[in-house]
């Protein structure tokens, strides 16, 4: 056995089914050994997307997604994908090949100091110097990636280590890290304090973030809020913690969120933030959410608590664990009046658009699409105006809504949808992007065809980088700079070139038939929706 065989054995021991990647000489021993395994390999068309695809897979399986790329440019290309996963706390294990150990530091062909370069975007990184360390490092990497606040871990393996003989392989049963013991269970005293506040509160609200989904606490959260009738809002990363139409769910907060969600949060007298960072897009004025109210902040990462807003009650722990503990308490509370007020706000403050009838209205289209999608479908939104419309108008039933809210990396949706589809082949997976973000990842149509990954793609086409155009509209009075996407390809020909079915929708007439045809078979389809180039999200 050589190091590369050991690496594969580690992945098998971790139950890894798919590795996304792109080979090069420095990772060839690994890709040679993987042929002796049942692990599926997917040749992605650019390394950044290997990390995005692994991210999509991780978010559906709840296990770290894995990608493996070569040294130098392979490794540096994957950084944006790693940084995206880091910002959204998605567990990844990224394996990079490295040049021969003794040549490290001499600037040889395709050498890059990748552990140094990714330091600010990983939870941890390893440069393996001894083949005997492989089992321990892999065990630790998977453990670190998927516990506490989840995130990417990078393992850099020089080619000579991959080729070095290893006599005994034993995958460790346990990890022993003296420096890493995340607090999962909430402190009993703090939990009691929160319950006391809930009993006192007249206007409580829970703001759920991506952390609730990462800890798979949706059911606990729902049971709890239904039992005590507590209203819920979410951040962008928290969309899907409750079905959109749930009577206790009042939408997404933030500068692109629902006005009534923000109003509800600001007027509450008890705000429980859970698994949310209180970041600028969700809470533009952190001062407001501490004013005249008790702020409870629940997070598995103690550094997030108090970073942007000083809470009254900090509660460190995993959301699932904490809501299980909350459910063990029995108390009474009455918020009917508050809920009536919120329902009024929801009625009165709904956003009304005036869509241009000459184009597809993205809001109405997305609502129609999501109503026709299967209950457990996975909707992957890209970045740009399409993301804001998706957040506002996609109706989550029992499915998932995936997007990158932290880093906002354009081109995320197609590779992430591919990862999600491989994780759940029986579910509908739909990527919704703009014509800008589509062109950042359209090379992956080849990957979809080659590996038979039937993802459905919607392109909201306006021939602009819409989100930036909208910003220039407001900030620079329509003084547009570098946002015109003229020169974009004819998408019908792109679809034909990749052997995909193609549909174009130019107006809202026949929208139902178009969506039915789009969703009909479990096959990849590219659907272009022509939207008003001057449309605004606000």
């Amino acid at each position: 056995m050589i190091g590369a065989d050991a690496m594969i054995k580690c992945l098998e021991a971790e139950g890894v089914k798919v590795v996304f990647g792109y080979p090069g000489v420095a990772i060839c021993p690994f890709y040679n050994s993987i042929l002796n395994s049942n692990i599926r390999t997917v040749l992605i068309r650019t390394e950044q997307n290997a990390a995005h695809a692994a991210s999509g897979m991780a978010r559906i399986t709840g296990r770290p997604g894995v990608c493996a790329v070569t040294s130098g440019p392979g490794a540096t290309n994957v950084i944006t994908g790693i940084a995206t996963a880091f910002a959204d706390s998605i567990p990844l294990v990224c394996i990079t090949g490295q040049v021969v150990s003794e040549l490290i530091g001499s600037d040889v062909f395709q050498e890059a100091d990748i552990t140094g370069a990714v330091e600010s975007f990983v939870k941890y990184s390893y440069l393996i110097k001894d083949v005997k360390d492989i089992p321990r490092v892999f065990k630790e990497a998977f453990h670190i990636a998927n516990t506490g606040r989840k995130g990417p871990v990078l393992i850099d393996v020089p080619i000579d280590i991959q080729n070095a003989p290893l006599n005994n392989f034993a995958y460790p049963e346990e990890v022993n890290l003296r420096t890493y013991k995340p607090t999962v269970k909430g402190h009993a005293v703090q939990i009691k304090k929160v319950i006391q506040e809930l009993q006192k509160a007249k206007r409580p609200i829970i703001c759920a973030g991506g952390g609730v989904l990462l800890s798979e606490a949706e059911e606990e959260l729902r049971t709890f809020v239904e039992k005590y009738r507590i209203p819920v809002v979410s951040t962008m990363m928290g969309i899907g913690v409750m079905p959109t139409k749930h009577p206790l769910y009042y939408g997404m907060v933030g500068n692109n969120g629902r006005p009534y969600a923000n109003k509800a949060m600001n007027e509450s007298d008890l705000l429980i933030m859970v698994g949310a960072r209180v970041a600028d897009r969700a809470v533009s004025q952190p001062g407001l959410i501490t004013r005249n109210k008790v702020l409870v902040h629940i997070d598995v990462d103690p550094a997030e608590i108090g970073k942007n807003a000083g809470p009254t009650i900090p509660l460190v722990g995993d959301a699932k664990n904490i809501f299980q503990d909350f459910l063990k308490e029995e108390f009474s509370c009455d918020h009917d009046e508050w809920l009536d007020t919120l329902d009024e706000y929801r009625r009165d403050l709904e956003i009304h658009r005036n869509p241009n009838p000459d184009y597809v209205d993205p809001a109405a289209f997305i609502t129609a699409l999501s109503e026709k999608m299967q209950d457990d479908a996975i909707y992957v939104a890209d970045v740009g105006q399409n993301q804001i419309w998706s957040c506002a108008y996609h109706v989550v039933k029992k499915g998932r809504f995936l997007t990158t809210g932290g880093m906002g990396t354009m081109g995320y949706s197609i590779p992430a949808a591919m990862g999600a589809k491989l994780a759940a082949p029986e579910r509908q997976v739909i990527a919704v992007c703009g014509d800008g973000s589509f062109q950042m990842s359209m090379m992956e149509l080849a990957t979809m065809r080659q590996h038979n990954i039937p993802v459905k793609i919607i392109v909201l086409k306006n021939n602009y980088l819409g989100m930036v155009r909208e910003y220039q509209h407001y900030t620079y009075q329509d003084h547009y700079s570098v946002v015109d996407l003229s020169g974009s390809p004819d998408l019908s020909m792109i679809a034909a070139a990749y052997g995909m079915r193609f549909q174009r929708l130019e107006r809202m007439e026949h929208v139902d038939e178009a969506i039915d045809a789009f969703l009909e078979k479990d096959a990849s389809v590219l659907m272009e929706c022509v939207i008003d180039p001057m449309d605004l999200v606000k």
Partner: protein
Amino acid sequence: MNKRIYSVLVENRSGVLSKVAGLFSRRSYNIDSLAVGETDDASVSCMTIVSTGDERTLEQIEKQLNKKLDVIKVKTFEEHQSVSRELMLCKVKYNKNNRRDIMEICEIMKAEIVDMSKHYLMIQICSTPEKTRLLLTMLQSISIVEVARTGTLALLKCAENE
């Protein structure tokens, strides 16, 4: 702006210093001084970091340090809770007119002259950061050639352990 001392026990491995120092630059925290050395346990190093900032930043520094996987333990304290020392070597150019002044300064400040040549003197002081700074100020009126300082080393006062 408050001053805080962080006594950080870290895994004694390559790359750890850059990870910890990188954390400060990345999140734009100040480093007033940084001193690193092995402890009695060869697998553990102690980094003494002095930083200034508002209370929230100083608290974030502690939390972010604790998040680093190579950090074993973070102790934070104020200067007055600790015994702090700094070692400084300072080389000055002297002449017959100022030699006596230099020696007097050294005597008052309890600094030592540890090396000497025809035109140069090397002065050593091991004292509180405050006194070390004071000596440097005093020597600035004479011509300083070069200076090397360790940065602050600090441990909590013994009484704090009782």
